[in-house]
């Protein structure tokens, strides 16, 4: 249960990081370390070089830029959870973070680390998908922007080259009058979700004018339920409609693993989607529910 030997670097700037990772093939970036260090301790990974990002000050912080938020990839989960800016403009993010691990892990864990580790059940990936986040990665050739929908390539594998680093996450908060909800099902507080769902619905003149629904835990990356979104659009919200939406969500292509079957995940997807839609409506009407 001890990590292998590695060479350690703690650069101060993004350009130093990029030059280090382009020089060293077998290097790993260390963000909050809440997933990487267990993998090192288990020797699932044994990189020759560790590049620690904790001193790269440019990667920290949340900024408001016109109508979007620009979040540095090293921003801690605990900062996002408590940030007044996030709570006011995109509270879905802080709601979801309540489910991410525990205080002790959120104090170290970062948004960029979660997105790059890309655990199938990672709450922050689900939220990034619901908001159509845009991710900026920086490499030797400069920056490129990747849409969240193109980010997951495979299990635990984002669309990131070995000599690139995720530097910024851009979120566009919803402006119109809308409701939101994040719920997940896990066996214990803070455990990985079996299925998680994020819902955003905008209501104009009593009709759903915009909807975004993302699921986590059902496949390698977060899944947007575009067919359910289409079903909801133009309809007036209500019990019948949400039930139908749940039945459609249940048709999602879900994976199975040693613990939970495809069918179990499908049923959860349906039930949680329906519940989250009701939750989002309640928020829209200004009724905050108790402990979700």
């Amino acid at each position: 249960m001890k990590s292998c030997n590695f060479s350690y670097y703690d650069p101060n700037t993004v350009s130093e990081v990029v030059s280090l990772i382009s020089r060293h093939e077998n290097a790993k970036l260390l963000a909050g370390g809440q997933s990487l260090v267990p993998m090192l301790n288990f020797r699932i990974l044994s990189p020759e070089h560790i590049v620690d990002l904790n001193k790269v000050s440019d990667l920290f912080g949340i900024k408001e830029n016109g109508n979007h938020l620009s979040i540095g990839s090293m921003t801690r989960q605990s900062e996002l959870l408590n940030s007044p800016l996030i709570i006011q403009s995109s509270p879905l993010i802080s709601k979801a973070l309540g489910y991410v691990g525990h205080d002790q892990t959120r104090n170290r864990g970062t948004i960029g680390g979660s997105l790059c580790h890309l655990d199938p059940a990672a709450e922050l990936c689900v939220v990034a998908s619901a908001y159509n986040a845009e991710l900026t990665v920086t490499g030797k050739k400069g920056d490129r922007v990747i849409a969240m929908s193109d980010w997951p390539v495979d299990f635990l594998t984002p669309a990131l080259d070995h000599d690139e680093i995720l530097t910024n996450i851009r979120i566009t908060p919803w402006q119109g009058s809308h409701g939101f909800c994040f719920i997940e099902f896990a066996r214990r507080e803070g455990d990985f979700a079996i299925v998680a769902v994020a819902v955003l619905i905008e209501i104009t003149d009593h009709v759903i004018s915009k909807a975004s629904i993302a699921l986590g835990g059902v496949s390698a990356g977060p899944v947007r339920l575009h067919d359910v979104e289409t079903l909801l659009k133009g309809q007036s919200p209500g019990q019948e409609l949400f039930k139908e939406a749940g039945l459609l969500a249940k048709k999602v292509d879900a994976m199975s693993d040693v613990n939970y079957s495809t069918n179990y995940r499908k049923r959860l997807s349906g039930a949680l989607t329906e519940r989250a839609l009701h939750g989002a409506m309640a928020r829209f009407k200004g009724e905050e529910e108790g402990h979700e």
Partner: protein
Amino acid sequence: MELWLDLKERKRGMNSREISLKLNGCEVTATVEPRIHLADFLRHTLGATGTHLGCEHGVCGACTVNVDGDAVRSCLMFAIQVDGKNVTTIEGIANSDKTLHPIQEAFRKHHGLQCGFCTPGMVITLEAFLKNHPNPTEFEIRKAISGNICRCTGYQPIVAAAMEAATNLKNQGQ
């Protein structure tokens, strides 16, 4: 083949560094290999064995220590990363006159520990939590210690201790 791997492994780790930190208020300087995690560093290098290691992969919370005001898992941080920081462990929780901290006192009163293995992590977690949440509900306390596993007490006495500690800390204005 094995020998070759061994040599290569050893060469990799040849970048030990000198670090200085404040441990429970005392300046400490030591040389560390980058792969040594903070918990091993505290226990083996500094002999501060109050911090316990249950799982070494971030699940049990026994290794929780306070770094610059935040409760963190010391098995998931490398010692090299606390260079220049303030680290508080269970050894530094009691008052300077050697009387117990209100959280420790409440644990004693309510039998919040049996074997005591989880206790350092529980106390450090609760100390940081109660600083930020002086009026917690029972639900909030359960959530706060959800990342700490106790195999003995069944949690009820820990929650009772935490509730009383919260009240006492508030009365003391601490």
